[in-house]
C-alpha cells in the first residue's frame, strides 16, 4: 500500500474511532446530569439508579475517548509533519484552549465519579454538568481548528512560508461557527438516539421497566429537539460551503456542470468518467436555493475546478446522501416521539414504537461518520484548502502501512471490548433490578 494512502487511512480510522467516544463523552454527562437533577428534585430512587448506571458509561467512554484523543494529537505530527510545521503556530490557539477545557473536564470527571459521598450534593451535581460543558467546549475548539484546514486564514502565504500570522483570526476563521454548530448538534442527536435506542431495546425485553422507560424518554427528548434544530445548522453549513469550497459542494451534490438553476440530486450513483449521475431523483432549483437562498441562482459545478483538484466525487456524494438520509429519519422519529409524548399517548410503550427507536440506535453515528467523510474527503486533495496538498505533507517515513494496521487492530479490539463491557453492565443492572421492585 502506498504510504500516503496508509497515512490517510490511519488518520481516518483514528478520527472515526475517537469521534464516537468524543460525542458520547460530550453528551452523556448532560443526560446523566438531567437524571441526577430529577433525583435531587423528586428523590425517586429510579433516577439515582439511572444516574449511576449512566455514569459508568460516561467513565468508560471518557477514558477511551481521552486516550484516543491523545493519539490524534501525536498523529498530526507523526503523519503530517510538513503540515504541522507551518500550521502549528497558526491554528495552534484553539488547541491550547482545548487543552484547558479538556483539563477542566478531566478534573470535573474525577470529582463527579468519586464525589458521591464526599461533596455537597448540589456541588456534586454541578461537577457533573461541568463535565458536559467543558466537553462541549473542547469539542468546539477542536472543530474550530479543523475548520481552519477548510478555511485557512490569519496569515499570508509567501513562497511556501506563512508570514504575518494572526492566531486569533485563524481561530475565528469563516468555517468555525458553522462547523462547530453542526458538529455539536450532531453529537447530541447521535448520542441521544443511541442511548434511547439501547433502552428501547431493553424495554422490548423487559416491558415497562421503570428505569429504561425514564431513560428512553430523557434521551429521546434531547435527541428530538436537537434533531429538529440540525437542518437549520445544515442550511448554514451548505451556504457556507457553497461560498468557500465550491468543489466540496459540487462533489456532495455530484454537480458536474455549472447550472442555473441547479437541481438538488437525491440518491444516485455518480459516474465520474461520463460526468453524470445514474438512478437519481431531482428536485428542480432546490440546490440553488440551498446554496444561495434563491431558486434561480447559479451553482458552480466541478467543471470550474481543475481536474486534479477534484475531491473523490463518488465517496463524498454517497457520504452526503447517507448523512442527510440518516438525519431525516432521526428527525422523523423525534417528531413522532414529541407528538406521542405531548398527547400522553400509550403508543409510547407500544412494541412498534420501541422497535422504531431501537432501529435508530446506530443512525446518528452513521450520520456523524458520513458527515466527517464529507468534510474531510471533500477537502481533498488539500490539507490546507487551496494552499498545501495532503500528498506534500505526509511524513517521509516509509512502511506506514504497519502502524496503520496496528492502530486498526487496536481500535477494533477496544470497540469490541467496550461493547462487551456495556452488555455486562446492563446484565448486572437487571440482576439488581428485580421485578418486584418495578413500578409501572
Amino acid at each position, binding site marked *: 500500500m502506498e504510504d500516503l494512502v496508509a497515512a490517510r487511512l490511519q488518520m481516518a480510522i483514528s478520527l472515526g474511532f475517537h469521534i464516537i467516544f468524543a460525542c458520547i463523552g460530550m453528551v452523556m454527562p448532560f443526560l446523566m446530569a438531567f437524571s441526577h437533577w430529577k433525583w435531587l428534585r423528586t428523590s425517586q430512587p429510579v433516577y439515582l439508579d439511572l444516574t449511576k448506571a449512566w455514569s*459508568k458509561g460516561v*467513565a*468508560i467512554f*471518557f*477514558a*477511551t475517548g*481521552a*486516550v*484516543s484523543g*491523545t*493519539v490524534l494529537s*501525536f498523529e*498530526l*505530527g*507523526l503523519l503530517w*509533519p*510538513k503540515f*504541522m*510545521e507551518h500550521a*502549528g*503556530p*497558526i491554528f*495552534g*490557539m484553539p*488547541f*491550547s484552549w*482545548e*487543552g*484547558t477545557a*479538556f*483539563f477542566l473536564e*478531566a*478534573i*470535573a*470527571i*474525577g*470529582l463527579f*465519579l*468519586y*464525589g458521591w459521598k*464526599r*461533596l455537597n450534593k448540589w456541588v456534586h451535581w454541578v461537577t457533573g454538568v461541568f463535565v458536559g460543558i467543558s466537553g462541549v467546549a473542547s469539542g468546539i475548539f477542536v472543530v474550530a481548528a479543523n475548520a481552519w484546514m477548510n478555511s485557512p486564514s490569519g496569515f499570508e502565504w509567501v513562497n511556501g512560508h506563512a508570514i504575518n*500570522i494572526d*492566531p*486569533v483570526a485563524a481561530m475565528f476563521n469563516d468555517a468555525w461557527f458553522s462547523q462547530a454548530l453542526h458538529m455539536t448538534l450532531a453529537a447530541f442527536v447521535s448520542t441521544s438516539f443511541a442511548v434511547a435506542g439501547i433502552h428501547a431495546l431493553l424495554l422490548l425485553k423487559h416491558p415497562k421497566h421503570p428505569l429504561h422507560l425514564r431513560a428512553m424518554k430523557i434521551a429521546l427528548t434531547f435527541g428530538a429537539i436537537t434533531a429538529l434544530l440540525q437542518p437549520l445548522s445544515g442550511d448554514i453549513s451548505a451556504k457556507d460551503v457553497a461560498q468557500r469550497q465550491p468543489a466540496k459542494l459540487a462533489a456532495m451534490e455530484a454537480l458536474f456542470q455549472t447550472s442555473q438553476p441547479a437541481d438538488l440530486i437525491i440518491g444516485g450513483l455518480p459516474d465520474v468518467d461520463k460526468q453524470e449521475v445514474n438512478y437519481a431523483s431531482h428536485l428542480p432549483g432546490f440546490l440553488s436555493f440551498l446554496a444561495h437562498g434563491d431558486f434561480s441562482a447559479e451553482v458552480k459545478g466541478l467543471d470550474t475546478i481543475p481536474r486534479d483538484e477534484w475531491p473523490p466525487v463518488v465517496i463524498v456524494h454517497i457520504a452526503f446522501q447517507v448523512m442527510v438520509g440518516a438525519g431525516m429519519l432521526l428527525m422523523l422519529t423525534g417528531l413522532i416521539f414529541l407528538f406521542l409524548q405531548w398527547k400522553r399517548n400509550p403508543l409510547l410503550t407500544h412494541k412498534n414504537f420501541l422497535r422504531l427507536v431501537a432501529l435508530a440506535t446506530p443512525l446518528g453515528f452513521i450520520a456523524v461518520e458520513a458527515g466527517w467523510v464529507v468534510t474531510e474527503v471533500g477537502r481533498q486533495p488539500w490539507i490546507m484548502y487551496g494552499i498545501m496538498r495532503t500528498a506534500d505533507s505526509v*511524513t*517521509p*517515513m*516509509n512502511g506506514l502501512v504497519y*502502524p496503520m494496521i*496496528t*492502530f486498526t487492530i*487496536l481500535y477494533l479490539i*477496544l470497540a469490541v*471490548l467496550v461493547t462487551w*463491557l456495556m452488555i*455486562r*453492565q446492563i*446484565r*448486572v443492572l437487571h440482576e439488581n433490578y428485580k421485578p418486584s421492585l418495578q413500578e409501572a
Partner: protein
Amino acid sequence: MFEVIVLFLGVSLLFYCLFAGADFGAGILEGFSSRKFREKGQKLTYDAIGPVWEANHIWLILVVVILFMGFPKVYTTISVALHIPITAMLIGIVLRGCFFTFRHYDPIKGRSQRYYTGVFVFSSIATSLFLGIIAGAVTLGRINLETTNFIQGFISPWFNLFSFAVGIFACCIFTFLAAVYLIGEAREEDIRRIFLDQAIKSNVVTVIAGGFVFIAAQMDGLDLIELLWSHPLSAACLVLATLSLPVLWFTLIKRNVIVPRLLAGFQVSMILVAWLWMQYPVVINLTHGEDLTLHNTSAPDATLQMLGWALIVGSMLILPALFYLLKSFKWNQEQVH
C-alpha cells in the same frame, strides 16, 4: 512571553513525570506483586490514583500543544525521526488507560480481571520504557534530518544502548515513585510494609540503572559526565539528589511516611531539572546541521503571545480546580476513612 512558555513547558514535563510517572509505576509494581497481595494492592492503587487519573495525563497534552504551537520544528522533528517509539508509547498509553478503566468498571469480577491486569502491567512498562527511550534519543544526537535511509533515519536515532538505558531508568524511577507514594496511601499496616519493602528494593534498582545510564552514554560516545560538569547547576542538582539518598533510606527504614514522599519527588525533580538544564536551550541534538534550540525553532511573536496568554489564563482556571480536586480526595482523607 518566551520565558513564560518555556517555564510552562518545563513544569508540564515535570508534572507529567511526577504524576503520570507514579501512575505508570503503580502499573509496573503490580507486575512484581505476589498474587496474595495483588487484590488488596489493586484496590489501594485504584483509590489512590482513580480520582486524579485523568488529570495526571493531561500534562502530556500540554507538552504536545506547547511544542507544536510554540516550537513546531521540534515537534515535527521528533515526530518524524522517532515515529516508531512514539507510536509504541501511544499504544501503551491507549492500552493502559483503557484497561485500567475496564478493570474497575467491569461489573463481573471473573477471569477477565487477570487479562486486564496483564495488559495494564505490560503496557505500563512499555509506556515508561518508550518515554525514556524518546528522552534518550533526543539527548544522544543521532537524529539525522538529511537522510532518507530507513535505518539511519528512523531506527538508529533511538535503537541504541543509551536510549534503552534511559528507558529502563525511567521504568525504575517511576516504580520507586509509585511505591513511595502508595506507602502513604496505605491504611493497613501489612500493606504499608509491603510498599515500604518495594520502595527500598526499587530504589536500589534505580540507583543501579542510573549508573548504567552513565556507562551506556560512554559506550555510545556521549560524555555525560563531562557534559554535566560543564553545566554546574545540572551537576549540583545531581549531587543534591544523590546526597538525599541516605536520608531517604534512613527515613524509609524508620517508616516515616511524609519525608520519603517529599524526597522521592525532590529526587525525580532534580534529575529532570539536571537533564533539562544540561540540554537548554537545545531541545534536540542533531547529527548534521545546527541543533534545534528553543530559540531557533520558536514560532513568530504573535503566536507566542497568544500561547503565553492561553497558558496563563488556562492555568488560572485549572489550578484552583486541581486544588479543589486534591483537597476533596487527598487532603481530607482522614475524615473519610
